[in-house]
């Protein structure tokens, strides 16, 4: 097959060009259909249990994604509570609520908040907290006083230090948040100008972060990828000094990138943060094989010699190592498909595909191209490369490296052993952590807003503790309860109930019971005498069950939740928690006296129900259903976390787990987590576990391939040595310098494996060839440290430099990937060139005698 492909390329270069062009065109035309996906939620499959549960809770409790708008007035003596700032807040709220795409009824801000307080002794008052902007300092300060009394508002809608106020803008569709954030920015600026308000506005919240990320991702793709192309082009020119020659690998790289991205988009995949990095990964990798062919070709070609003959020789010589390096790199990336994270799977699969495509293109397109180059250009190139190549700095450096490695072989081995041990120690220090907001640089306006708002407020990151009543009443319980009433009832009523009664195994929700009550009621409408009495008795029985079914209305249950909340507050891990107990206590306090001692849960369930009936007589009765379902079988405690770091979220979860050890859940209650911050922890854990699996399987696969390639298990192990050291070293370094192990870092492990094996393959292959040819280990090593070592170094430099434009990216994950891949390339090339000779020496040094 190899021969057939090569002959085809050499004989019919025009067809090769045409096919390449068609490939780029057909797949490239798919690219405009690109759909960017920046939702971290999509790190989990759509059917993942936690994600499904999260969305179910979100839907049921009407908890929308929200843009958080904050006005911070630190310079004013009264903080935010001055007429101008509150005026601006009022005006901004008024206009934001009208924006298309905003869920007006669930928007939260001081101007649309309800206040409940005392209008005099024995008189309770329900009114808008701030229906109009305050006209005087006194009025403004009165609002502060009111807010301080309302635990659900304080530290949420206005900061505890009185310096900041927030507007939570719930939105229908998070894809609209970029537009909305822009409109909001215009509104807030105008509002501040209108009132001459002191203070700064900030806009943050996950939807804005995600949408902005999508935008900057495009910027990154538009800048970094072409820059990587340019960097590689310049490097190739530096190495080969022939524009016509290096145009070929550039075409291979371009076509590979266009075809891969086109296929990905054409297949209907969204471009996620990971897949947006595909071009920049493929570009340098796609060029690498070309560099090998061109290096060899430049080495072997002499003017006057048949160039097709030279190409056949070169390709025949390089086919196996190139195939293996491509396959191993592909395997490294493809192993990412074993992680349970869809965007990472797509990334791995398509880079793997791209690498194989690049290999195919290289062995077909490059020979075709060279076969059509003008002889004088080849000659010029030849001259340029060979003039002084053997005396270049790189060449001298490599030679002394090779000699040094052999001379101090034991020392080298000892040194690497020490580095390895230190690295393993470093790995144990690794901090697993991520936070999508930190994907922005620290001076990005979203990071700034995030920092400022979380300094003033309890927190802008959401996690929800979802409490469920699992021990629901069923038909059997109801049958038992109605039994006495039924026994005394006339036949007609018994018959009626017989048709109405639920099956004994049916779980009865609040709504089902309400339906039964209504049906009995309707029947009662036309009944009299004994029938009416019997129906009344039945009604009372059903009502008693319905009342018990309202689990989260029971005082002892609310007290249990309040205790959990108090414990969380005391732990300092969560900025604040908001739940039904807070609301019930507040209403109870204001109904009774307004005094702090009445800030408590009523003694009886009926008291709770009646306090809530009063709350529902406010302007915003629907707010209740964010905290509990109308049948009182599910309650949600909303935690405001000041940090979106997964570590911090994990600490909260662990704290609650420990609390539950000491204070077991009441019988019949179930506790689960939801919320975006929680989901981030879920996918990160899945990824860390997945990465271990993917790394292990890639390691095994590559080891097997190496054993097959070298037909020796020993050589197979040897080939794995440099990458093992490299990966261990890189992750040890991450552990020692305290860089968080986050998504990009996690992904690096598997692909490092695929990339750094290349150097070992080429080195060992060439060493064995040289050994076979020269029969003397030292001489073989000296030969290897000429052209082969240069090709390896060149490739390491090409890939490393190819990734450096990522350093200019506006987003942190790209920078991380750029820095680490560049270092990985450098380290693994170095390890290969220094460690392998030293490691081979003890086994092969005696070959001298054999020769």
């Amino acid at each position, binding site marked *: 097959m190899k021969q057939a492909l090569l002959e085809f390329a050499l004989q019919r270069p025009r067809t090769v060009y045409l096919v390449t062009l068609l490939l780029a065109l057909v797949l490239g035309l798919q690219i405009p259909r690109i759909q960017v996906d920046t939702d971290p939620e999509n790190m989990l499959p759509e059917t993942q249990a936690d994600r499904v549960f999260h969305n179910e809770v979100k839907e049921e409790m009407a908890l929308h994604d929200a843009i958080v708008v904050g006005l911070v007035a630190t310079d004013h003596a009264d903080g935010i509570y001055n007429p101008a700032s509150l005026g601006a807040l009022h005006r901004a709220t008024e206009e934001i609520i009208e924006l298309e795409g905003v869920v007006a009824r669930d928007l939260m801000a001081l101007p649309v908040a309800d206040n409940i307080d005392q209008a005099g002794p024995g008189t*309770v*008052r329900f009114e808008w907290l701030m229906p109009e902007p305050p006209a005087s300092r006194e009025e403004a300060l009165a609002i502060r006083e009111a807010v301080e009394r309302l635990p659900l508002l304080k530290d949420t809608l206005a900061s505890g230090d009185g310096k900041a106020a927030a507007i939570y803008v719930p939105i229908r569709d998070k894809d609209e948040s970029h537009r909305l954030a822009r409109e909001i920015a215009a509104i807030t600026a105008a509002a501040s100008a209108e009132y001459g308000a002191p203070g700064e506005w900030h806009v943050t919240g996950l939807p804005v972060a995600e949408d902005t990320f999508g935008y900057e991702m495009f910027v990154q793709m538009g800048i970094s990828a072409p820059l990587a192309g340019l960097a590689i082009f310049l490097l190739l020119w530096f190495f080969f000094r022939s524009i016509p020659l290096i145009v070929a690998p550039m075409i291979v790289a371009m076509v590979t990138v266009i075809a891969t991205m086109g296929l990905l988009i054409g297949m209907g995949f969204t471009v996620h943060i990971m897949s947006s990095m595909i071009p920049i990964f493929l570009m340098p990798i796609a060029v690498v094989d070309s560099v090998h062919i061109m290096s060899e070709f430049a080495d072997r070609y002499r003017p006057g010699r048949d160039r097709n003959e030279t190409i056949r020789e070169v390709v025949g010589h390089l086919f196996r190592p190139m195939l293996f390096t491509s396959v191993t790199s592909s395997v490294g990336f493809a192993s990412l498909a074993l992680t349970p994270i869809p965007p990472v799977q797509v990334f791995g699969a398509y880079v793997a595909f791209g690498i194989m495509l690049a290999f195919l293109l290289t062995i077909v397109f490059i020979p075709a191209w060279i076969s059509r180059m003008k002889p004088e250009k080849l000659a010029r190139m030849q001259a340029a490369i060979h003039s002084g190549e053997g005396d270049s700095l790189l060449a001298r450096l490599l030679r002394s490296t090779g000699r040094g490695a052999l001379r101090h072989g034991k020392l080298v081995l000892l040194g690497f052993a020490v580095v390895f041990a230190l690295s393993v120690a470093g790995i144990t220090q690794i901090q697993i952590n991520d936070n999508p907001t930190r994907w922005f640089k620290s001076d990005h306006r979203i990071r700034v807003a995030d920092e400022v708002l979380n300094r003033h407020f309890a927190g802008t990151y959401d996690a929800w503790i979802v409490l469920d009543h699992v021990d629901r009443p069923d038909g059997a319980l109801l049958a038992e309860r109605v039994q006495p009433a039924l026994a005394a009832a006339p036949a007609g009523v018994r018959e009626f109930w017989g048709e109405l009664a639920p099956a004994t195994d049916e779980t009865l929700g609040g*709504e089902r019971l309400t339906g039964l009550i209504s049906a009995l009621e309707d029947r009662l409408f036309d009944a009299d005498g004994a029938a009416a009495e019997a129906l009344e008795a039945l009604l009372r029985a059903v009502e008693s069950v319905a009342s018990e079914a309202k689990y989260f209305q029971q005082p002892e249950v609310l007290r249990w939740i309040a205790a959990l909340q108090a414990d969380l507050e005391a732990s300092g891990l969560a900025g604040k928690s908001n739940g039904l107990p807070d609301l019930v206590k507040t209403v109870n306090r204001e109904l009774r006296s307004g005094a702090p001692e009445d800030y408590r849960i009523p003694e*009886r369930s009926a008291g709770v*129900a009646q306090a809530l*009936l009063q709350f529902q007589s406010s302007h915003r009765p*629907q707010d209740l259903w964010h905290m509990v379902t*109308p049948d009182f079988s599910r309650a949600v405690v909303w935690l405001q976390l000041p940090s979106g770091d997964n570590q911090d979220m994990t600490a909260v979860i662990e704290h609650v787990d420990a609390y539950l050890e000491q204070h077991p859940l009441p019988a019949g209650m179930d506790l689960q987590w939801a919320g975006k911050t929680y989901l981030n922890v879920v996918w990160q854990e899945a990824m860390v576990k997945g990465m271990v699996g993917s790394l292990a399987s890639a390691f095994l696969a590559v080891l097997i391939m190496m054993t097959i390639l070298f037909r020796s298990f020993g050589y197979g192990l040897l080939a794995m040595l440099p990458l093992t050291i490299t990966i261990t070293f890189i992750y040890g370094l991450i552990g020692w310098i305290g860089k968080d192990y986050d998504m990009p870092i996690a992904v690096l492990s598997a692909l490092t494996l695929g990339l750094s094996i290349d150097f070992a393959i080429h080195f060992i292959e060439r060493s064995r060839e040289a050994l076979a040819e020269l029969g003397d280990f030292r001489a073989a090593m000296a030969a290897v440290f000429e052209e082969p070592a240069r090709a390896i170094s060149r490739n390491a430099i090409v890939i490393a430099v190819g990734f450096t434009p990522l350093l200019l990216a506006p987003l942190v994950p790209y920078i991380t990937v750029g820095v680490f891949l560049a270092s990985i390339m450098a380290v693994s090339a170095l390890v290969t060139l220094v460690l392998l000779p030293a490691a081979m020496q003890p086994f092969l040094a005696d070959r001298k005698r054999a020769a």
Partner: protein
Amino acid sequence: MKYLQLIGLSIFALALSPGARAEPLTDAKEIVARANLASYYNGDDGRSEARMAIEDAQGRRQLRQFTILRRDHADGGDQDFMVFFSRPSDVRGTVFLVAKHVDRDDDRWLYLPGLDLVRRISAGDKRTSFVGSNFFYEDVSGRHPEADEHTLVETTAEHYVLESRPKDPGAVEFDRYVTRIDRNTFLPMRTEYYDDRDRVYRLMEVLAVEEIGGYPTVTRSRMSAPLDGGNTLMEFRYIEYDVGLPADIFSERYLRSPPVDWLRRSGE
């Protein structure tokens, strides 16, 4: 004016017999005044039992059941209301007492048996939810006809169509509302509330009218929220007018010990 003819009302001595459709009225103020009477002032007093089925946007339902006693001081004038809750059972015994005044804020009291509390409620804003339903407090007690500017925009074979704009836009959440008032009964049959983007965000529809004690009375109506979803269906049963409620039961004293004799349906 408007819907929610909780209770019947007084004998506004108009001839309402079928076929008595005289020349259509042209004065919006007069139409509104009559609608106010037809909706809220049937008889000198009245009692009825109401059942509210509150359904939210997700289709989840809650039930509220209460008995209303009403006594008028004068037609179109001050009124006393008492609302006794019977369902759900955990709010049973809760009582609202309202002394509605046409020239000043209402007086409102509240009894919560579960908390063993009698409290006066500062009147404040009447456009708050009535116990979590889509109806507002003001829908139940009646909005003062003088609060809005009314214009007769159309007279159809069946209805007067009025457009009303608030005199104090800052005090209400609507921009305007349009009411279709039955030319015969003067009952508002449909009211659409528009927001400032001219969208109907609240909609009241009368679903059934029955003649009770000679008064056409709304027995089923629905208030819905077309933009957010959700609605409340309100049904009245056991309606009686001119039952002879004594004035003294509408007092704070009776909050803790309800006037059971007057709450009981006739015939029981």
